[in-house]
Structure formats: structure tokens, C-alpha cells
């Protein structure tokens, strides 16, 4: 008896009870849909985060003020105010550390921008011209901040897409003068639409020279320093050098230095853990579906006991009868799995249409795993009914008992 024979026989039997087969098949499908779509969301989330970070450039080190204390103990800085990060720090880092290609000081504040009657409260991001490349910002018209040293402070501004639209509607903002806080600034560029980006609403922000931004906010320190490393530079070694240099300048380690890779890794692992936990829960529904299959098969065996008796009478062995019913259960669960895979993939594609930002896609390993799992469900939960069929007493079975 070949597998083809078994499948044919199983298919025939399943078609005899279309509704019952369909219902237990749907049970498996639901479990598979859950696994397929949830892994897709998890994977999409990880990819979303990864994309966000890779848009920051190849190899970026971020320096933030303040020590990131996680070990407890006596707080630092008692009796002395920690030194903030300054423009000077940024300039020296770029000059003195060989693996640093560009150092971009960033100062973030919030203020009101107005043009004529219209005004809006927006994040003001002070940066340098290198920030454009680092963040892969696209200019729709005009230009980004002009090149030059970080301490140069022109009164020019680059508007995010939404800000430009809201202040100028259809008009051309280039060359116009807007008011930010008490300062008048000339619009030299408008950015292309960007959409959501992790940690920064590019479309809703405006960009000015970092020195100007600090003067406006009356600050002597910057919020962050982003270091773009040369492509072949070793980030760990660069971080060591940065730390050494800054400790030398500040007399203590009053800053936090992280590489983008480390952040990406920890975020991804958090997302993956959550996704796997959810998928685990989804997999439980497959077990429930398996019990449904077992139930259907048990009913089928008792309804078809006369058939089992006949099969024995015409010379089927126990093993063959076991095979007949096992393949039937496996066919049921496998079809359910395929149906679930199709429905789940459809759901994922639909989700991607609705939320293009998260490019969800079920990973291959999840597809393989869920197919094996649903096949295993059928075989696993089919064993008991098949065993019962194989061990029926042929004489009693022929009489329908």
C-alpha cells in the first residue's frame, strides 16, 4: 500500500463527511493563521527597528550627557556639577580621533515657529550639515544647513515637510523669513516627506545650525554628539578612544557612549522575545485544534467500524489500518495548515497594505515550523483513534459494534 493509495483513500473518506472535515480543518487553520501572522509582525517589528538604525548610517556612536547608572550605589556628582557635552568636545573628538569621520553635535529644544498669522509649536533640532547624510534626510527644495564649523551660527532654517505645508500651504517658503521664538530666520530649504522615524518626527521638526540653537536657548551644552565612524573602523575601539579623551577633558566619566549596533541588538532581542512568547500562546491553539481532530477521528472510527471490519476481512493488516487512519488525520491537519498558511499570508499582506511602515513578513523558519507542527498535530492526535481502529475485533466490527 503506497502513500498515494493512502492519501486517495483518506481523501475519499474525508470527502464523505465534508462539513465535519471542514470544521476540524478550520480549527487547525486558526492556529496556523495566528502563528503565521504573529511571527510576521514580530519579524516586521525587528526589521522596522533595524531599518531605523541603518538609516543612521553605517557605524554611528552616540554620546549622551550623564552616566547611565544601573548598578545603584552612591550617586555621582555630589559636590560637583558634571560637565555637559559641549561644542568644543564635538570639534575635538572629530579632530583627535582618527576613526571619526564626522562629529555632529545636536541640540534639541522646542519653540514656536510662526509666519504671518500661522504659528506652530515644533521641535527645533540644532545640528550641522553632516546631519543630513547621517540621517539620510532628503531635501525637496532648496538646501540643507550650509557646510562649515559647528560653532558657526547663521540665521537660516530648514523646514520639515509638514511644518512647511502648514505654515505656507501651497506657497513657496524658500527665501521667506519666519520667526522662531524671538528670532527671525530665513528659510533655505524644505525636506521631503519622511514618515515616522524612531525617536524623531522629521516631518514635524525644523533644523537650524547647532550654534544658533544653543544661543536661542541660552545653553552652553549640546544634547547629543553623534559620531560617524569611517566604514572600516572598529566601533568598540572607537568608543574606548572617545571615552579616554572625554574623561581626560571632563576629569570623570559623566557621559554615556553607546554604539548603534548595541542598541539595535538589545531592542531586537526584546522584540523577538515578546514575539516568541505570543507565538507560543498561538501554538497552544494548534494543540486545541489537535484535540478537535482526535475527536473527529474517534467519531469517524466508531461510525466506520463496519468498514474497518471489512478491511480486516479482505486482508488489511493492523499496520495498514493504522496507516489509513493516521494518514486521514494527517491529511486533515495538513490541509488545515495549508489553508491557515494561505489565510495568514493574506492577512499579513493586507496588514502591510494598511500599515506600510511595518514591513511584516512571516520568516521561512516559522512557515516550516508551523507546517511541521500542524502535520505533527494530526499524526500525534491521530494515533489514539487509529490505534483503536487497528485493534478493533473484526467480527464485532463487521456487525457495527
Amino acid at each position, binding site marked *: 500500500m503506497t502513500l498515494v493509495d493512502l492519501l486517495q483513500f483518506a481523501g475519499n473518506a474525508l470527502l464523505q463527511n465534508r462539513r465535519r472535515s471542514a470544521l476540524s480543518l478550520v480549527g487547525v487553520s486558526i492556529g496556523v493563521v495566528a502563528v503565521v501572522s504573529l511571527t510576521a509582525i514580530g519579524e516586521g517589528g525587528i526589521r522596522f527597528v533595524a531599518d531605523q538604525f541603518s538609516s543612521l548610517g553605517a557605524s554611528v556612536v552616540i554620546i549622551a550627557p550623564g552616566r547611565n547608572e544601573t548598578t545603584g550605589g552612591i550617586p555621582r556628582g555630589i559636590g560637583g556639577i558634571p560637565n555637559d557635552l559641549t561644542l568644543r568636545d564635538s570639534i575635538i573628538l572629530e579632530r583627535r580621533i582618527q576613526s571619526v569621520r564626522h562629529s555632529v553635535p545636536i541640540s534639541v529644544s522646542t519653540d514656536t515657529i510662526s509666519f504671518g498669522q500661522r504659528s506652530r509649536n515644533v521641535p527645533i533640532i540644532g545640528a550641522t550639515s553632516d546631519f543630513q547624510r547621517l540621517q539620510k534626510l532628503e531635501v525637496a527644495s532648496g538646501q540643507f544647513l550650509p557646510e562649515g564649523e559647528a560653532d558657526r551660527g547663521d540665521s537660516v532654517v530648514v523646514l520639515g515637510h509638514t511644518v512647511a505645508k502648514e505654515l505656507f500651504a501651497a506657497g513657496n517658503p524658500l527665501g521667506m523669513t519666519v520667526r522662531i521664538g524671538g528670532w527671525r530666520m530665513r528659510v533655505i530649504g524644505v525636506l521631503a516627506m519622511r514618515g515616522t522615524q524612531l525617536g524623531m518626527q522629521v516631518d514635524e521638526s525644523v533644523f537650524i545650525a547647532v550654534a544658533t540653537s544653543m544661543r536661542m536657548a541660552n545653553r552652553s551644552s549640546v544634547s547629543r554628539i553623534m559620531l560617524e565612524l569611517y566604514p572600516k573602523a572598529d566601533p568598540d575601539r572607537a568608543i574606548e578612544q572617545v571615552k579616554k579623551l572625554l574623561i581626560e577633558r571632563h576629569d570623570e566619566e559623566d557621559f554615556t557612549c553607546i554604539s548603534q549596533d548595541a542598541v539595535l541588538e538589545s531592542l531586537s532581542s526584546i522584540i523577538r522575545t515578546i514575539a516568541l512568547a505570543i507565538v507560543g500562546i498561538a501554538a497552544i491553539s494548534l494543540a486545541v485544534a489537535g484535540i478537535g481532530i482526535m475527536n473527529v477521528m474517534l467519531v469517524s472510527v466508531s461510525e466506520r467500524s463496519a468498514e474497518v471490519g471489512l478491511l480486516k*476481512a*479482505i*486482508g*488489511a493488516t*493492523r499496520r*495498514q489500518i493504522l496507516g489509513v487512519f493516521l494518514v486521514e488525520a494527517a491529511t486533515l491537519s495538513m490541509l488545515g495548515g495549508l489553508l491557515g498558511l494561505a489565510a495568514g499570508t493574506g492577512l499579513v499582506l493586507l496588514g502591510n497594505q494598511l500599515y506600510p511602515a511595518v514591513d511584516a513578513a512571516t520568516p521561512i523558519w516559522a512557515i516550516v515550523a508551523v507546517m511541521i507542527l500542524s502535520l505533527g498535530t494530526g499524526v500525534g492526535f491521530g494515533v489514539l483513534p487509529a490505534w483503536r481502529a487497528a485493534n478493533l475485533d473484526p467480527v464485532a466490527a463487521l456487525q457495527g459494534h
Partner: protein
Amino acid sequence: MIEVEDLWRTYEMGGHALHALRGVNEVIEDGSHVAIMGPSGSGKSTLLNLLGCLDSPTRGQYKLAGQDVAELSGDALAEIRLHRIGFIFQSFHLVPRLTALQNVELPMIFAGLHPGERRERAEVALVSVDLADRAGHRPNELSGGQKQRVAIARATVMGPGLLLADEPTGNLDSRTGAQVLDLLGRLHDEGRTLVVVTHDPGVARRADRVLVLRDGEIVRRVSGDEVTDLGSLFSSVEDADKVSEQAVQKVGR
């Protein structure tokens, strides 16, 4: 050749033993045509199931072609049922969702024959029972006589030497019943051993030899020609004596 010696079959029923067969001895030569008669519950079907290796005796010996079947494994018995025995049932036992052709193919599937060969042999078998034009019909589209002929085609398609029929005409009217009996007679004439369990004297009359069972024992052996009516078989003095003997035994226990 079938050799049965002191064959007992006992069922446990709610704590006490029920003897379906009590020491049956019989030899059935190859190529013979034997009918088994007797009232309901006399052990006819039990004997037939034992002869067909569907059931195993509680006590006693059954040799099929010299081989003691008690020594055989489950798979070996399945092999015997597959190749050497054909069953024909009162209620036909066709698989309802399969066509006539597929029903006939069924034993060959378990024998592992190639699909092409299966189909060819099933077609030939259907032709031999005169149902070639019904090959694609499902059982619910066939008459009773046609169903039984499909079942006979299925029973013979593996070429067994022994056919066991349990009330083969029990669900048929006399005309289609006669057709089925003619068909069985032809199969016997081709050299097969035929054992038929029946209530119907008309069926038994066709046999070379008739075994009359009562309460699990063979109480008479007659030739088919001697079968005239049920009364003559079951109400003999000898039979009555047996019954009273058993009654005495029962009271004694």
C-alpha cells in the same frame, strides 16, 4: 483442505461463559461445497468466522492446508485472508463512498498491486459478474443483487481458493438470490471450496454436504439432496435427545 478438531469458542458474558461452539470436528476437502445450517445462535457464523481466520478458537485446532493457524501471527493471518479466503456477507459490506470498481480494487490496494494492474483486474472481475456497465456506480446506485455481485467480484479478485459466504441471499429476493447462487455455483465449479451459512433450505440443497448446527455442535451431516425442509432437519429424534440432555446438564450445574 480444512481440518477442524474439537473446536470451542467461548465468550465471557457478564461473568459467565457462553459457549458458541462446543467441540466441532470437521474436515472439508478442497473443492467441496458445504452448507452450514441451524437456528439462530447455533454457532453458524462463529464457525464461519473461525474458518475465515477472523476469530480464533478458545480451544481446539484449526488446520488450513496443513498449517495450524493458531501458530500464525496477526500479519500472517491477514495475508491468508488477503490471498486465500474470500468473504461474502449478507449485508454486502461495500464501502459506500467508493464506486463498484474501487470496491473491487480494495483488496489489491492492501496487496500492494500497481494501480494499472489493479484497475485491469477489477474490470475483469466486474465483467465476470456481469457488471461491467456499473463500474462507476456507487453502492447506493446499485440494486441488492448488483451489490452482492460486486462483493463477490471483490471476494474473488485476489484468486482465493476458499469462499466463505454468510447468508449471501439473506437480503435478496428469490430471483436475484438465485442469480447470486448461480454465480457462487459457477465459482465452485471452477474449483473453489465454497462454505455457505444459510437458513434457506433452497440454498443448502445446492451443497454437496450440509452441516446442521445446534447449540454449538454439529448435530447432523446430510447431503444436499436430503434437505427437504427445515422441519425434517431440526426436529429429528436424535436432535431432541440432545436438547434434553443439555437441559439435564444445565440443571446439574
